[in-house]
Every structure is written in C-alpha cells, then in structure tokens.
C-alpha cells in the first residue's frame, strides 16, 4: 500500500511542532495546513512576505494584494504580518524559519538536494529554493518515492544540479519516512502493509533500518485522505 499525496501531507503535518515557523513549497507541501492536528498552532511563512498565511481565499473573496509564493490568492490569519523580501529572506537565510517542507527531484544519501533545475527544462528558474535549502535548520522533503517512470529519487548521488549540499534532514514519501544522518539514510517508518525490503527495492541508496522502525500512523480512510492500494 502507498500513501496518496494527502496521506504524505498528513504524515508531515504530524511532525510539525507547536509554535514552529514553517515554509511550504508547492505541490504536496501545500496540502499540509489542512492536516494539522486540532489545537496545534503553527505559523506558515510565504517568502513573498507573509507570516501567518491562512487558507486559500474563497472564490469571489480574493484580495488582489494577498498572494502566497505560488501566487495563489490566500488569506491572512489574525496575528499575521506582512513585510518585504529583504526581511523575508532574513527569516530564511538567518535560520529563523524553523522548518521547510519542499518537493525534490532527487535527494542523495548525504542530504544533497536537487529541486531547482528540471532535466529537459530549458528555461531555468531558482526562486527562493536555494535560500531555503541553505537557511532552514529542519529541511524536510515531501515527494513521491519514485518518478512517474518508476525510477528512484533517493540516490547515492544527485545527477541534477544541486540546490544545496547536505541540507535535507528527513524525507517523507508515499512509501516511507527516512532520516538523513551522519551515517547515511535511516528508515524510520514504512507505509502501512509495506516492509523495509519493499522500500529498499525502490531506493537506490542503501537504507539502514532504525531500531523501532514501524508502520506510519496514517488513517486508512478519512475525510480528504484517500489511500491508493
């Protein structure tokens, strides 16, 4: 069994601590806010200048001056603040944003991240990806375990241009939760019904299995979450 995109977001959300300041990338990470456990207060950052990003604006209620870094119309929660790019990247590069959850093209066993330069894409764009990768102390990757063609994305060494070396702390996929440690990859959790060998089979780099490696705690059926079997 593998997790849906929502299942991955649910699993990441469980790990964001109360009071953390979190930057979310596009794609799977953008689903995370709806899955925060009840009563847990986390402040979401958008690099174009928001702390306290709220839900997407309801149709017809968009404010033309309130977008997030993906240029979606969002809302501002009570206690939110707005600021310019210089202060926003002080927050990022200075390590004040405690967590970021981003997508990846490739992650290497030593924590190298490649997520800005897409193979075959002739127009390059880096945006804030490098500043996030160099600046955020708890950099989490949320992605599918393999490419749409079934190739592993967790590699011995990245093939694509690096976003930053040795920056990823933890990887959440549809198959597993994997920590990146000084000794390499450490498999902490597997998707319900999978065993470590099945995860290793889809992972190029060697996995060590954590003492206490267990199945992820993700509900099988739950509003907004669909598990693909």
């Amino acid at each position: 069994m593998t997790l849906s995109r929502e299942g991955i977001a649910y699993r990441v959300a469980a790990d964001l601590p109360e009071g953390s300041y979190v930057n979310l990338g596009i794609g799977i990470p953008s689903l995370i806010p709806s899955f925060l456990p009840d009563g847990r207060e986390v402040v979401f950052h958008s690099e174009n200048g928001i702390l306290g990003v709220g839900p997407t604006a309801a149709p017809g209620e968009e404010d033309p001056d309130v977008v997030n870094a993906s240029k979606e119309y969002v809302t501002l929660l009570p206690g939110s603040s707005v600021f310019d790019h210089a202060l926003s990247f002080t927050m990022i590069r200075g390590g004040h944003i405690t967590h970021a959850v981003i997508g990846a093209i490739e992650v290497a066993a030593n924590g190298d991240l490649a997520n800005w330069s897409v193979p075959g894409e002739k127009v390059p764009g880096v945006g804030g990806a490098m500043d996030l990768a160099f600046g955020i102390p708890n950099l989490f990757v949320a992605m599918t375990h393999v490419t749409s063609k079934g190739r592993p994305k967790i590699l011995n060494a990245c093939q694509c241009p690096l976003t930053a070396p040795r920056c990823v702390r933890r990887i959440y996929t549809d198959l597993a939760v994997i920590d990146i440690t000084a000794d390499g990859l450490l498999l902490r959790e597997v998707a319900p019904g999978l065993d470590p060998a099945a995860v290793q089979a889809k992972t190029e780099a060697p996995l060590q299995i954590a003492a206490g490696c267990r199945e992820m705690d993700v509900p099988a059926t739950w509003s907004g979450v669909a598990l693909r079997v």
Partner: protein
Amino acid sequence: MIDKTMASCREAVATVFDGARIMFGGFGDVGMPGQLIEALRDQGATDLVAISNGAGGGGYALGGLIQDGRVRKLMASFPSPRAAAFRERYLKGELELELIPQGTLVERIRAGGAGLGGFYTPTGAGTALAEGKEIRVIDGREYVFEGPLKADFAFIKAHRADRFGNLSFRRTMRNFNQIMATAATTVIVEVDEIVPAGGLSAEEIHTPGIFIDRVVAVARHPQLFQPRKPGGAA
C-alpha cells in the same frame, strides 16, 4: 515646495534612455507597476537591462517589453515557465539571462542602496550558481561573495503616497519594491492614491520619500486582478 507627484505615467517615464538598467518591483502581479511599464512600452526606450524577480507574463508590462524586443538582458530569480514572451526570446538566444537566487537578488539590491561593496552569503556555495565566484570560509562555513546591484531607474508600485514621495503598501505589495526604491538613480512610483502631506502618519510610512523621485496615481488596471483556482501548482 517639494512635490514629486506627476500627472501621468507618460510624463513619469519620459527620461528613460536606451541602454538603461531598470529595476521592476512586484512579485507576479502584486505590487507590480504595470501601467508605468506600459507607458515605457509606448515611450520607446530599448536595449534595456531589466532587474526583476520574474520575467513577467505574456503581452502585458514586463512580458510586453520583452515581447517587443526591448530587453537585452534580464537579471531575475524565477522566470516562470508561464512567462511566454521571455521563454520565446530566451530560447531563440535573443535575450541574456543572469539567474540569481531570490534572497541573493534582494540582498544585492539592498547592498547597492545601502552603499555597501558586497557581502558573503551561504546561499549557492557548492552549486552551479556560484561557479566563478569567490568562495570564503567564515567560521567553518562556505560563503559566496556577491556584489551590489544598482540601476538607472526603479519602477515600483505602492498603495498610497504623499507629495514628499512617502509610501505605504497594502498586504503583500512590498516584496521587492521597498529595497529597489533605495538602489536606483531615479525612482518612479505608481500608486493607487495620493494623500495630502501628513495624511500618512510617521509610523505607517513604509518607505520614506527620500528614496523617491516621481509619483503617479492611477486606477488599477482591470486586467491585473485575475483570481486563480486554489491549489494549482505555480
């Protein structure tokens, strides 16, 4: 009496010259001085170097300038795959691109405005974007040297202004606008509204008028507000 207000965008951009280096504020459409840029399209200056977070969209504002073949070089962090005009010119080799990480871009502009000779940032060390740049190890970590960026003109957008050029912004409009205002010889601002002197309290002025040369009030272009569907990838 100090009065930086001008009657039209046309008048405000009249002095832009061929070969000028221009900073364009905004993040996507938010805080983007679209009508000043459209006036520049009419004005005719060409062979421009544009400094901007993105590359604009299709045929409006910066995208329009690029479409018209007026931009020789773009310094940007994220020329979106949706920036059709840029994409076409760039792939034909008709436009040079200097790609700069977003935080480094704003910091280089800040250094230009603040009279600094450059700075060391960790961002990019060990990646393709630091190739050819000086690397220095400081306190055990690698840093990349980055120099200041200045421009002949900055085109920026704010919400309200007074005759001194004091600016206030709404919501997420600030983005690159505040820093770009510090780093150009001539700073031209498009605002929603001009208020009397004293109409902005000292605390609500986000950018003091010292940085500003010309201000024009224009109604927002209706084409700019285009709500997108929630949840889509950017």
